[in-house]
């Protein structure tokens, strides 16, 4: 007897979702506002999108952000998947507690602390701050998210499959690549996407660890936001929201279709 949702249930869900989505919807709507005043509707226009294309600084920031995201997400996915395998498959090993602590702590640790500590590391080693320091910092933080996502999938993965592969003559390494990895691939892909999005999104850590010539998009947006609301930011935000939403919804539909096929 699964009770359906009551009126109260429906009301809370609708109100909650409205609260979560309304501000973003307003932001998107006003990116098409012809008026420079954000709150006055001056008719439909795409001129702010045109303005974006002429903003060289902004374009440069987008380019930096994409490169940082691609490289750091890939790095984090490899390292994070390894960490997940280690945590799930090898039972107890020396330093496990410390290891799992290092995985979970960055998930909740205030970004300001992470940024500050990474910056001090780079300063201590005399490394010039720039593109690579941001990339490495993002990889470090997003690695932990990757581990959590992949770990969840690995736990539900039937270990007998891997053992069957071993039984049929695979080395542990071969068994991992031939059987385990193809089966956890959707989770690994999702983890990569998460890492990429987090990198795309990050302001605080990038502000600490970046240097001249490596201004990321959030840093650029932040410096403009401090000066006030402007339709250009609405436009670039809309593009970013649209990009991410498309990716996430596509991934969701893809996964749903797979599930439908499996069932």
């Amino acid at each position, binding site marked *: 007897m699964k009770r359906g949702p009551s009126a109260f249930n429906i009301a809370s869900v609708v109100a909650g979702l409205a609260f979560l989505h309304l501000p973003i919807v307003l932001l998107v709507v006003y990116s098409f506002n012809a008026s420079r005043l954000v709150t006055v509707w001056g008719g439909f226009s795409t001129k702010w999108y045109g303005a974006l294309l002429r903003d060289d600084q902004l374009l440069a920031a987008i380019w930096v952000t994409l490169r940082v995201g691609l490289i750091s997400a890939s790095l984090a996915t490899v390292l994070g998947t390894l960490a997940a395998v280690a945590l799930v498959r090898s039972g107890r090993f020396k330093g496990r507690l410390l290891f799992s602590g290092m995985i979970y702590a960055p998930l909740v640790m205030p970004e300001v602390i992470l940024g500050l500590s990474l910056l001090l590391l780079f300063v201590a080693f005399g490394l010039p701050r720039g593109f690579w320091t941001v990339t490495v910092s993002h990889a470090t933080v997003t690695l932990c998210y990757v581990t959590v996502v992949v770990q969840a999938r690995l736990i539900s993965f039937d270990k007998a499959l891997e053992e069957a592969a071993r039984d049929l003559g695979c080395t542990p390494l071969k068994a991992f690549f031939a059987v385990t990895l193809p089966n956890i691939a959707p989770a690994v892909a999702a983890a990569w996407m998460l890492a990429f999005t987090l990198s795309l999104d990050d302001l605080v850590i990038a502000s600490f660890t970046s240097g001249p010539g490596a201004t990321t998009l959030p840093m650029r947006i932040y410096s403009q936001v401090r000066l006030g609301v402007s339709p250009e930011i609405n436009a670039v935000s809309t593009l970013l929201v649209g990009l991410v939403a498309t990716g996430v919804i596509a991934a*969701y539909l893809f996964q749903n279709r797979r599930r439908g096929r499996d069932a």
Partner: protein
Amino acid sequence: MKGRPRTGLAALAPFLWLGVFFLFPFLLVAKLSLSDTALAMPPYAPRVDWSAGWAGVRAFFAALDFETYARLTRDSLYIASYLSSLMFAAVATGILLVIGYPIAYGMSRFAASTRQALLMAVILPFWTSFLIRVYAWIAVLKPEGLLNTFLSQFGLPELNLLNTDTAVYIGLVYAYLPFMVLPLYAVLEKQDQSLLEAAADLGCTRTQAFWRVTFPLSLPGVGAGALLCFIPMVGEFVIPDLLGGSGTLMLGKTIWTEFFANRDWPAASAVAIAMLATLVIPIVLYQRQQTKMIEAGR
């Protein structure tokens, strides 16, 4: 098992990586918090004089002291911002629980297919840039913003919320709502329906069954959600910076200001260490709870 040592080797790479880029930097923060400011680049002293060899290292350690911490306790600004950070995070966590629980519970009551879509709808903002979501509220809350436009249409008095503590609360609740809803939903959705039937069979009304069975069983989710929100909120920077006023004191903002504006790196480090010391217990709690949940799922 021959496989053990090999997976152990695989674990070594991320382990080393985190050791170098996560663990070690904290030692540096701790060290820096014991240093003094200096008009140099980087702006702190002492630094190890490697050319002097062992004597240089000794001199370095001798120069470390707790002066920065002493300075922090003398300045009421730091203490106020410490307390107000905890206050913001605690109150916001409470509000999040009150708002998030009915949402998560409501979601869990829908049919499985609808639940998937609802989950998606809750997760979607989480994938959207944090900065952009906070920025979206500026347009809503500012004096000539959308909220006031809306209110004035109904002849209601205008509200000046931007750059107030209220705006910070709105921002915190808004930004962290998915983090509260998701762990709650995860435990509520898994709940065995036959337990509710058993409670009804043993004489519980729906409300009684909720308080005697559903709610106690969802406590791990309540704990996870509360920790997941509370810890990062204590150190939140973007929200108080963009939505709060000049009087809004939060540690994240303090660290940022000390670091970027005042170039007082030791002070920033000391504040970070103080914050970390406060958060160590919740962080350990969170880690233990996550590990336990994973063990249970095995």
